[in-house]
């Protein structure tokens, strides 16, 4: 039964991979996540490609956020969480005992559901990552990183005259773009976004979506979203999770227009969820 499911999921991801231009950035094989005795994710295999936006959709509690957090080992902060299976970043197992979690998280950045800027100045928020990783030699270089990150996050024009203001004084949408800029500042390879727009109004959401589309050219982006419209708008690949299982994974256009599984069809047509 378990084997069969692995094959099934593996088959799906292979198919999605068939027309990908390069080897997968992240490759998860047979990943299960437990909270204590409770199994939250059951045997998920999926490939994530660079220069693509991969969306995880599914009803609440389906495990999509849990799975996202295994990709940069943020589940390590929960004592009862346990991960089985392998997740490879550029072919290297990230749950390998020799893996440096700190380095991993510098390569796989994350943006959270609720904007969480540090209660520091805008400048310090961005400079935080480069400082702790020693990315800048001297103040000039740090200034450049801050400016470049804010530019890429589309926030520079709005905040360039008040870099010393507190990051928490910005609007919700600006705060979220600040958090994206903060993640970009350490030059990651993958950016994980956990429902990045769920606390934002539609205008701010549109800006973030635009930004995600621009960022796609540089990074592999994985986004968890509640909104199917959002998944359809921003992503190239969509994975549908249900009750801890990966039900279907494929091109976004296929998932939304021509799903193979009945469950996916029911979900995207609003039958449940």
């Amino acid at each position, binding site marked *: 039964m378990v084997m069969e499911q692995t094959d099934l999921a593996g088959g799906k991801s292979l198919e999605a991979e068939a027309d990908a231009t390069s080897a997968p950035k992240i490759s998860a094989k047979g990943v299960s996540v437990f909270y204590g005795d409770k199994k939250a994710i059951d045997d998920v295999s999926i490939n994530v490609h660079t220069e693509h936006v991969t969306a995880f959709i599914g009803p609440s509690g389906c495990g999509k956020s849990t799975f996202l957090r295994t990709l*940069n080992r*943020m589940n390590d*902060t929960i004592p009862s969480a346990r991960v089985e299976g392998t997740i490879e970043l550029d072919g290297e197992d990230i749950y390998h005992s020799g893996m440096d979690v*700190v*380095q*991993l*998280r*510098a390569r796989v*950045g*994350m943006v*959270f559901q*609720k904007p*969480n*800027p*540090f*209660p*520091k100045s805008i400048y310090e928020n961005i400079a*935080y*990552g480069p400082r*702790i*990783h020693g990315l800048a030699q001297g103040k000039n270089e740090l200034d450049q990183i801050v400016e470049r990150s804010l530019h890429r996050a589309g926030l520079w024009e709005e905040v360039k005259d008040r870099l010393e203001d507190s990051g*928490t004084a910005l609007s919700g949408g600006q705060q979220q773009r600040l*958090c994206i800029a*903060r*993640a970009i500042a*350490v030059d990651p390879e993958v950016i994980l976004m956990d429902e990045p727009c769920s606390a934002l109004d539609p205008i701010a959401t549109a800006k973030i979506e635009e930004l995600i589309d621009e960022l796609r050219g540089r990074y592999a982006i994985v986004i968890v979203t509640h909104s199917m419209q959002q998944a359809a708008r921003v992503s190239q690949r969509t994975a549908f999770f249900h009750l801890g299982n990966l039900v279907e994974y494929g091109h976004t256009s296929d998932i939304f227009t021509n799903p193979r599984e009945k469950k996916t069809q029911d979900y995207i047509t609003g039958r449940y969820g």
Partner: protein
Amino acid sequence: MSSAIPLLLAIGLGLAGWLVARSRAWKFKREAADGRLASLPNYHAWYAGLWVGLPAFLWGALWSVISDNLILQHVLSSSGATGLPAFGMRRDAIINEARNVATGAADRALSPEAQALVEPFREAITLYTWVGIAIVLILAVIGAAWAFLRLKPDFGARTRVEKGVLFVLFVASLVAILTTFGIFLTLIFETYRFFEMVSPIDFLFGTHWAPDPMANAQNPDGSRYGAIPLFWGTIFIGAIIAMTVAIPVGLMSAIYLTQYAPAKLRSWIKPALEILAGVPTVVYGYFAALTIAPAIRDIAISVGIANASSESALAAGLVMGVMIIPFVSSMADDSIAAVPQAMRDGSLAMGATTNETIRRVLVPAALPGIVAGIMLAVSRAIGETMIVVMAAGYAANLSGNPLEAMTTVTVQIVAMLTGEASLDHPATLSAFALGFVLFIITLILNVIALRVVKRFREAYE
């Protein structure tokens, strides 16, 4: 006869009103068509009980304060009072003696002057007790009439009782405020008297502290009242040495407890730390005097400081620092724990280590709360007396050497107010001036701490 009678009477009447109203409410309930009242019988009872008892009780309390004065005035205006000496302790003694005989606390008066006042005292006490009782009764009857005329089946006693409870709570909170105010007034009054005798400049800026309680009170030597050594001792022991111990240890234990300790260990260590806060300061005091101070002296001698004394600022400061660790650590613990998990996640997701996250994100974000905790700890430390008395001594030294004996403001307050103290002497009154300065300093520290905490609370809500 005593001043407690009106109070007890008021309570008794209130209870009676409570019971009567309750049984009447049950009667309403039985008679009501649907067997329901607008308010439960207990609310009827409390409504009546409060109206009958509360005004009478408050009056009784007020009366027990003012009636003594009225009685005294009555006595002094009587014919027996003409022979009293005009002023001083003897006059007070005679009046006390007469009062004791009149109330039955003493068998008979020894002096003829007192004997002459016994009868007027008896008269006055009887008179004013009856006046008090009469007014209590009148108030109770008025309250009862007010309450019982309103208690009907459809009466909303419930909301009225709510208001009554509010009033009682308000009075209770007023007690603390008024007491503080009263303490403050006493301090100001006595401090003013002190500064009439000794110039504030001598007091606040002089560097020699040696008040002589035996010296002539009329013309004190201002140069002996320089309080700078005391202020310095207070700051050196309470704010510098104690904080050098308490801030790092408290902060680090808070960080360990909130960020690293397993839940099980935390559930043991935290209460244990709080027990530390509950140890009486006297116990810390003899720990400091019997264990720490000799140890420090021995170490000092062994490294070649020959004249090290067994009383030292260092011993007192170290032990005081240990004493206030729980204050620093529990406030720091609360404020670090109050930093949203999202901050921590955000930093960890950037690839920061736990240690970097604590140093660069959590502690800065929790800083207002930590600072407030430190402020409270400082105000606690500078108000501390016992440890200093036992470990640092009474000698007012203006010195930066922690191995020397030193003294603090609070210790000198105790020293000046105990023993052969006369309230007219500047040496005694200096205690109030010292207390006043201390009061102002701790008040300022507390205000700063509260303001900081308030700002901190607004930050995350």
